[in-house]
Each structure stands twice: as structure tokens, then as C-alpha cells.
């Protein structure tokens, strides 16, 4: 006899979800950035989620402030970008919060960058190069394929911490992966006209986005990573725009528009602020609408 195995699976899933949601009080999860708070919300909707930063804050320069220590003290899991993005504040929070759960990736600490192949890894790092990350660019949340890998790895982590809710987490991952995999071709189709377009941007914040949709960042408003735009550097960028192939100047929601506006006025180029993460503008309410918003804004230029 042939039974529709999918139907059985879904039924079993529904049953187990109903059962385990009674048993599961939900993990207490500390997200370093709002994109990971949003991902956790997709994968563990019952969890108590706290985001340490907003899309209007530079995640490189966060204060290890008392409220964050208090939140981390209570966390079962900390989910962060990794690749040293939080190296200036996360170790201090770990030390100050005296919470052994979130100290090591063996336990309740998760670094997204450890589960994907990051771009721009460096063989050697010198401070004269600016505030660079040897482990590669950590702003990987605009790579939809990498985020899918991260979601899978994060689900494994959630299950290891909360095995009783295993079926729930697997079901949530299945739903998310399905929706996400359907959305990717739509985004790619929509962004097709952006392929080959050249922009000047601030930092390598949108490195993965440009890599994904085939855009090229031909200039950086920062003379070196972490250093603010200087007038001599902006002057050199102005020369670069003279060739006429630059489409726009891009800054992230937490970056100053001053240097971009200076250059935009003189080069007669539009300046566009893109949400760096969920909450970076009105439209970006979750990961899906964040991607939608970023592509929409780029298409409007």
C-alpha cells in the first residue's frame, strides 16, 4: 500500500508541535544584531528574544553597557555574526555577565560566520590597514544562500540546547527554508537589472549584497576600514566618478551621510541610505521585507 509520506510527516509534525509547545517555555536568546534576532524569531518563535543593537547602531562600536550585561546574564543562547565583528564588546559582556552558558560555541554561543564561507578573508592583518577582520567580512546577512546555511546550523544549536522541542525547531526551519528558497529567485529576478551596476559605498557593509546581485563597489567612502571619510580621500573619489559609470553612493542606516552628500553634490550622483538590518527603515520588519526594501530602494535610483 502506498501512503503519502508527506502527509504523515505533516500530521506527525502538527501533533508534536501541539504537544511540545505545552512543554516548552522557550529559550532566552540574546542576539548581537537585529538580523539575527529576526532569524531567531523565524526559527524559534516561542523564544524570548533580545537584540543588543538596532539597525541604527554601528555593531563595531557598541558599549558593553549595564543593560546588555543584565540581558546576557539571563541568556541561554547568544547569536552573533562573529568573524570578530563584536570583538570590541562581546568578550567584555561575557566576562561581566558571569553566565557560563554563553561563553563558548561549545555551549550557548553561536557565530554565524563560523558556518559559512566568508568573503575577503585575509592572510595577515596589520592595523595600518584599518579596522579589518582577518576572519573575513562579517556582514553576511545579505547573502541569502549563506543565511540558509546559518539557519540550518542555528537550528542544530537550538535543538542541542532544547532537545525537547526538536520537532518544533525542525518544523520552523522547514517553513523558513521553504519560504526563503521561494523568495530567492523572486529577488534575483527583480534585481536582474542591477547586475553590473557600479556604486560607491561606505565601508564593506553591503559586500555580500553586491556580490549576490552582481553589483560592483568601485569606491569606499572610508579611506581605510573604520576610519571616517577624509576630505583628501573624498577628493580622490570625486575623480573616480568623472568616468561617469558610477550609479549612486550607498550608505547604511547607521552611517553618517555627510561625506556621501559632499560627494553626491559635486559628482551629481544620488545618495541612497539602505537599511543595514531589520528596523533600519519602516518597510524592514523581518528578513524578507528587509531584502525587499533594499532591492526596491536600489531599483528606484
Amino acid at each position, binding site marked *: 500500500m502506498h501512503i503519502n509520506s508527506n502527509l504523515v510527516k505533516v500530521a506527525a509534525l502538527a501533533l508534536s508541535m501541539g504537544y511540545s509547545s505545552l512543554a516548552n517555555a522557550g529559550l532566552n536568546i540574546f542576539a548581537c544584531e537585529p538580523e539575527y534576532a529576526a532569524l531567531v524569531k523565524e526559527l524559534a518563535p516561542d523564544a524570548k528574544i533580545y537584540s543588543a*543593537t*538596532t539597525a*541604527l*547602531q*554601528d555593531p*563595531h*562600536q*557598541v*558599549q*558593553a*553597557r*549595564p*543593560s546588555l*550585561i*543584565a*540581558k546576557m*546574564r*539571563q541568556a541561554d543562547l547568544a547569536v552573533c555574526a562573529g568573524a*570578530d565583528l563584536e*570583538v*570590541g*564588546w*562581546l*568578550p*567584555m559582556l561575557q*566576562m*561581566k*555577565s*558571569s*553566565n*557560563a552558558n554563553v*561563553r*563558548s560555541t*561549545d555551549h550557548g554561543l553561536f557565530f554565524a560566520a563560523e558556518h559559512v564561507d566568508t568573503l575577503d578573508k585575509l592572510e*595577515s*592583518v596589520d*592595523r595600518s590597514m*584599518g*579596522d579589518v577582520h*582577518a*576572519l573575513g567580512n562579517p556582514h553576511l546577512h545579505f547573502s541569502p544562500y549563506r543565511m540558509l546555511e546559518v539557519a540550518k546550523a542555528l537550528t542544530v544549536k537550538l535543538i542541542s540546547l532544547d532537545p525537547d522541542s526538536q520537532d518544533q525547531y525542525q518544523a520552523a526551519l522547514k517553513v523558513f527554508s521553504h519560504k526563503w528558497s521561494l523568495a530567492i529567485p523572486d529577488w534575483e529576478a527583480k534585481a536582474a537589472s542591477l547586475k553590473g551596476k557600479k556604486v560607491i559605498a561606505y565601508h564593506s557593509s553591503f559586500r555580500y549584497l553586491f556580490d549576490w546581485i552582481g553589483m560592483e563597489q568601485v569606491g569606499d567612502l572610508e579611506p581605510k576600514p*573604520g*576610519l*571616517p571619510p577624509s576630505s583628501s580621500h573624498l577628493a580622490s573619489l570625486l575623480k573616480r566618478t568623472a568616468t561617469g559609470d558610477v550609479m549612486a553612493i550607498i550608505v547604511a542606516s*547607521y*552611517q*553618517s551621510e555627510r561625506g556621501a552628500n559632499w560627494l553626491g553634490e559635486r559628482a551629481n550622483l544620488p545618495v541612497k541610505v539602505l537599511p543595514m538590518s531589520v528596523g533600519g527603515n519602516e518597510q524592514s520588519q523581518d528578513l524578507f521585507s528587509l531584502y525587499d526594501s533594499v532591492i526596491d530602494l536600489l531599483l528606484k535610483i
Partner: protein
Amino acid sequence: MKTINYHAAYAAACALISTSTWAESPTLTNPAISAVLDGYYQNTERPMSERVEGFGLGHTELALSANIDDMFYGKLTAVVESHEGETELGLEEGFIQTLAMPGGFSIRAGRFLSDVGYLNNQHVHTDSFSDRPAAYRAFLGSHYFDDGVRLNYVAATDLYLAMGIEAFKGDSMRAADEHNEREYKELGVYTAYTKFGGDIGANGSWLAGLSYMRNENGRLTADEHESDEHESEEHEHSHSAQYTGENTYIADFVYKWAPNGNYKYQHLTLSGEYFKVTDFTPLQGSGEANLGTQNVDDQQGWYLSGVYQLSPNWSTGLRYGEVDTQEMHGDHFHPQKLEETELSLAWHNSHFSTVRLQYTNQKGTNFDGIEDDNVFTLQYVMTLGAHGAHQF
């Protein structure tokens, strides 16, 4: 601070640096090795300061820190200072801390900075002024680090609440003994502190603390007949508290503000601390009987500081502080007072380099002969290597 010859200091420095060959890309789990370079020129002296007139090296620091294993974290901080042709190598930190105690508890043991007050647990190179406020210099020897042990607890509440107790040897907090006759208690200093903190909206964060320090060796001895002459010679370069007492109470607060909580471009830090030092007069019967019964005011000090980061490249700070102390002259006390108004302007090429110009106006009453002095300091503080994160 132990004085050793220059070659030994240099060898120790090299020993620390050479370990970096196997830690080329320090991560959260590999050792962080860093050096802080601090050099300055100062036109005159500040009383009770570690910095002297003319060119000098401040806290030139070498630090090595890492998780030792899954249970312990360790840090070693060596400070190299140069004074009158001699190079001094001092150990400012050498501690272990537990990482895996349950219930929000942790223990730190070894040599470390006490957690009393707000500034004391911060490294001096993170300050926005070239010297600690006068109250710190008078009552804590600029920054109080010592050999001892700490038990700290962080509560599992949304409002940050931490408390702790410490016990220290207290060598640098001993009341002066001119005749080397005094018997000090080996376990000299006990502290208890509590800290609260949280956020105010999306823009502001705060931290407030109360601390108590018991100093078993803080009372003066009665027979310091010629104390004035001796004291003035000791002000040159000191790491010890100049004014001690049995009980010290400290209240502190800090408020930081940044637009949308984004510290990248602008932020403001307001902070202040108040010190009260009591029970410093010699006990009755320990010499001159009338000293103990003499009615002497408590010693006090406080400061208020505002530092504004105007842009990633520039910051400016304004600080006012005063200290009221009592100097023993034979059988009676002389009150003395020092007021400092300070203005600093700093240029930061990156997070790791600072060049600072500071102006200090000092007004003194019976304080080391200071009446109305102007102190100018030009200083650089630069960090190289993988430097650990700084506290709030």
C-alpha cells in the same frame, strides 16, 4: 613599585611580545597581546601625580590575556615607566578569574584593580584626561590595584545589579610610618560595593555605584613630629595613597548618551564621584593623647566630568574636582584644599591612537604650596596589538 635595571625590563618586554608569533590573528579564544604607549610633556607638576615635570613616559603597558581553559581566564599587565634615568617595571595586573561558576558568581584572584568607585577598575589609558581626579590621587594612589581576592555576583534581573566583596594586602594604602616602628596588619583592606545600571530610552545608559573600603592600616601614627618636611619630599613619584583613613565611602555615577545609541560619530559621557574618608586620626593612648580627641573634619573629595566625542576624530572634556584633606603637624591637623579645573582636547586618528592637549588650573589652600598654578600637558596614548574591550 620594584625598580630593576633597564635591560631586565627590556628582556621582559621582549618575552611578552615574542609570544605574538604564535597568535597572529587573535580571536576570542586566542591570547590577546597588546601594548599601550603613553608619552607626555608637562610644563610643571601636579601634586600626588605619577607624572613628573618635563618629558616622561606614562603608563606604557604590556598586556597578555586569554581564556586559560573552560574554567579560567587570565590576564597579565606589566607597566613600564621611566623616571630620572631609571626604568621601572611594575606588575599592575596578574590575575585569574573564574568563567563557569553558577548563579552569576565569579571569583578573581591575584593582582587586580579594585572594583570600588567608577574609574578605579578602568585602565588609566582609557581616561579622557591625562591624570586621575585629585580625589583618586589623594585617597587611592591614582588607581588602587593590589594582591587579593574578589567575589562578585550579578543578579538575573533586567535592571543591572552587581555586588561584590574584596580583600587585599593593602600595602599601598598604609598610613605613613616614618620611623619603621609600626606593625601593620598583613590583610589590610576589605571592600564591599554594589552597582546598578540600565538604559534610558534608545539614547542613554547609566551606571551608579556605592562602595565601602575598610583600611585596617589607614589610621595615622601619632609620633610624626616632623611630618611636613618628610611629606614634601615624597610627592615626586608615588603609587601609594597619600591620605588614608580607616573608612572610605564612595558614591559614583556615569551617564552616557549617543543619538539612537549609535556611538560611532558622537557621544557624551557625564560622570562624577564623591569620596569621604573618616577615622584617620591616631587612636587615643597611641602617643599624644590629645590627638585622638581633637575634633577634625573628615577628608573629602569629588569631581564632575563631561566628555563629548564631537566626531570620530575629535573629543573634548571638562572636569572640575576638589579634595579636602587633613595634614598632621605634630599634635594637631591642618586642613588643606586643592581645586582643579581641567579642559582637554583630543585628536583620534583611529580608535587606537590619541593625541591630547590638556590645560589644568590648580587652586590650593595650604596644599604643597600651590596657590594658582597652570599646568599644560601634551600627551599621546596609543594601542598596538589585540587589545581587549573596555568597560562601560
